[in-house]
């Protein structure tokens, strides 16, 4: 550690107390990336504040010393959103993990941003409520991280993504001011600043608390696991189900590549000859005849799958079996470590009718770049997650993965889709923004950013390309895997 860095650490320790500051080679290493491991960049120090005031103090201190800072929750992000791109201070929200108020009558709660997604649902389960956004990382990922990336999840098909469930936030602005946007009651007049902050990837300030909306736990649920002998039959079924007008609660696809890992990890049984599985859930929270509504919906889904040549349809017999299926789905990418040392989970969106040809393209690209690919994704909303697996100790493979990923995203845009569905731009896709947006569009976005952030210290080098000093630094972090 250089003496300059030592002095910075000492000042932070004075500000927050020594047990709230991590520094030195081990800390620099442990916080040099999130779950997107291709790009790495060391922080100078990591701070673990306990209050909004402490976060504000750190932000003001960073401003006074011209030190960049990046907020980090559980570090499960998949686009490098929590990467300290220009070094500086990582502000961990993990000690801001309290649920502050539960308002059952108005179906909402107030929590600090480091609270774990799953906790929000657990504390209100006795009231028959839950927090609907359910990213696969929900057992560990934080509310703040979900807000930053506008996280989705399987059930967002029916229930919407994070932005639809955030009523208000407390945020430390890049100036160091503490502000409130929105609040307990939805739908205030004026411009929707909460909507801007959610999905702002931590570039508009550091969110420390949020009011979140709670929704009733469905009173009736049916979950089916449908096997197909070709991926095309599965993707065609997805397109056809959506075309009927039925919106299942979740409609997920898993291909052979992911099944290899998942069946090892979670003992999921499926019919021999299966090349793709659809995990389909239908639910209803109607108080009246909920189950018959769900059964009717499932019958329709079933009919479509059979027409497309499904070889096996299994309905989860009880909650335990349903939970097991969801564990396999949600931890599926995590299980890929059984197959290779590293993965990059890509994220792109296409119109659902294009799923069959898009998947064909994904396999073709993987083959051409000689990288392994597995797919498990939110098929129902056309949100692809090609998961490349490789050995990050081989620079050639890292390069191939980045290239293959870019080709896939380009094709998503050609087909009328988007560069990301739910993982964010981070540093991973910064160069791809200009594929989707014109210079004018990007300028408008930069103007929107300046409403909150007119400097270049708050989570620099994310979302918008060509920021000051990012282009030259990028060489330093790109592909510095190990």
């Amino acid at each position, binding site marked *: 550690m250089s003496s300059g860095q030592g002095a910075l650490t000492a000042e932070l320790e004075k500000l927050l107390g020594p047990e709230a500051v991590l520094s030195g080679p081990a800390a620099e290493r442990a916080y040099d990336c999130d779950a997107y491991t291709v790009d790495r960049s060391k922080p100078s120090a990591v701070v673990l504040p306990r209050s909004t005031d402490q976060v504000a103090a750190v932000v003001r201190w960073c401003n006074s010393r011209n030190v960049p800072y990046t907020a980090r929750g559980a570090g499960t992000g998949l686009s490098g959103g929590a990467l300290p791109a220009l070094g500086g201070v990582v502000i961990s929200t993990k000690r801001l993990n309290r649920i502050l108020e539960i308002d059952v009558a108005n179906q909402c709660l107030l929590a600090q941003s480091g609270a774990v997604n799953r906790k929000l649902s657990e504390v209100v389960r006795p009231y028959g409520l839950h927090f609907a956004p359910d990213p696969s990382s929900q057992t560990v990922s934080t509310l703040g991280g979900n807000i930053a990336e506008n996280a989705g999840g399987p059930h967002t098909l029916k229930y919407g993504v994070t932005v639809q469930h955030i009523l208000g936030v407390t945020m430390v602005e890049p100036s160091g001011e503490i502000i409130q946007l929105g609040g307990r009651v939805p739908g205030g007049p004026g411009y929707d600043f909460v909507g801007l902050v959610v999905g702002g990837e931590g570039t508009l300030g550091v969110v420390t608390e949020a009011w979140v909306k709670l929704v009733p736990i469905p009173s009736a649920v049916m979950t089916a696991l449908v096997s197909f002998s070709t991926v095309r039959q599965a993707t065609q079924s997805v397109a056809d189900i959506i075309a009927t007008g039925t919106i299942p609660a979740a409609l997920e696809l898993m291909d052979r590549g992911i099944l290899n890992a998942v069946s090892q990890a979670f003992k999921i049984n499926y019919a021999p000859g299966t090349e793709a599985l659809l995990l389909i859930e239908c639910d209803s929270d109607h108080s009246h005849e909920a189950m018959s509504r769900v059964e009717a919906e499932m019958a329709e889904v079933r009919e479509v799958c059979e027409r497309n040549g499904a070889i096996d349809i299994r309905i989860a017999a009880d909650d335990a079996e349903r939970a097991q299926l969801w564990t396999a789905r949600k931890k599926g990418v995590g299980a890929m470590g059984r197959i290779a040392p590293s993965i990059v989970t890509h994220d792109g969106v296409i119109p659902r009718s294009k799923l069959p040809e898009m998947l064909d393209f994904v396999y073709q690209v993987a083959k051409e770049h000689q990288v392994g690919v597995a797919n498990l994704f939110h098929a129902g909303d056309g949100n692809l997650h090609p998961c490349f697996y490789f050995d990050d100790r081989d620079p050639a493979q890292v390069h191939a993965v980045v290239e293959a990923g870019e080709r896939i995203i380009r094709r998503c845009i050609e087909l009328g889709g988007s560069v990301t569905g739910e993982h964010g731009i981070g540093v991973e896709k910064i160069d791809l923004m200009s594929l989707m947006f014109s210079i004018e569009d990007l300028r408008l976005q930069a103007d929107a950013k300046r409403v909150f952030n007119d400097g270049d210290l708050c989570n620099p080098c994310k979302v918008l390309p060509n920021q000051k000093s990012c282009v030259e630094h990028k060489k330093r972090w790109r592909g510095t895997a*190990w």
Partner: protein
Amino acid sequence: MKDLGELTTHCIRCGFCLESCPTFTETASELESPRGRIYLVRSAVEGKLRWQEDVREHLDRCLGCRACETACPSGVEYGSILEMARHRIDTERPPIAKRLLLKSLTSPGALRMSLKLGSLLPGKRIPDAVSHLISGHSAEVNRPIPQQLAPYTTLDEADMPPVRGEVFLLEGCAMRVLFPRVHQATRILLRRVGFAVREAKQGCCGSMDIHNGNVDEGVRLARDLVSSMAGDLPVVVNSAGCGSTMRHYGDLFDGGAAFGDRVTDISEFLLENGLAGALQYSLGLPIAATYHDACHLAHAQKVWQAPRDLIRSIPQLRFEEMAEADTCCGSAGIYNVTQPELARALLERKWRNVEATGAAVVATGNPGCHAWIAQAAEEHGRAVRVFHTAELLEASFRGELPA
């Protein structure tokens, strides 16, 4: 033998382990998380971090509870990574005080002697000077006081099923000195399901040393144990920490795997051999009880259900599941001596969860947890009593808890 570097590459940094890790949830620092520790070890293996200066402290602070293995979708063998990395660190720079502590615990003679000498000292805990030498902090753990034997009356052979087989019983190092009543109960319960114990002159299983990176000494003890229990009889173990290591002797030395396959936890063995049925005709216990999963039974041996099924078979007993039942209590072998502060924080968390059940009894399957939670019970006014699962099961046949 496994390769340490290769083991670490199975971690893809998804982070799904984080909330399962007691030291991460206590400190909120990723340096004290499984993902962080694996990354540090991998970096040290690759020469990017220094073992002693950068990595050691964070491995020292790991409980070795292996809850992260239960959470990990990729099947990362964290326990092996920890043991191998500790071995590497300690071989390079042996921790003298820790080695002496291990030595005093893993030889029953030495343990008895040190307890006798200790009882002459004032206060309940290890003297501060000794604790500071080991951990740099004041002691939190009380000096253990050996259990009294129970005045169990002899079984009436006429009421017993015929003997249908024999087993070996691990007497262990600490268990036989500190918890002799647990062995008494274990032997009686084995007899109740038709098994006799074949006596063997035996020593320590090596688990304490192996978990703490002192692998060579641990393997020496393990080999001795294997030769003292030659043949193919089942080896019944009532101490979770020992059982977890013994099952995996195959990872440590040739010929260890066959022995490992013979190892079974007392709860599994009793359940498989019909104790639940026998319990139905026992006198029962009109109490509320809860169960604490020893980490090395749940996360390391994947035994969650058997002890619960047995306890639930006790007539009149009301079973109350506690929150975070399989979260470490902080005892963790010698952890409550080497890391008193974190161990204390975890004990208080465990205690809050125990108290919230309203149960009068906590059962558990490991001597370390047993003594540590019993210390909390004493400190909080003894409203709750702690027993080994075997003691509680035998109490049902007697119609009363041991005094």
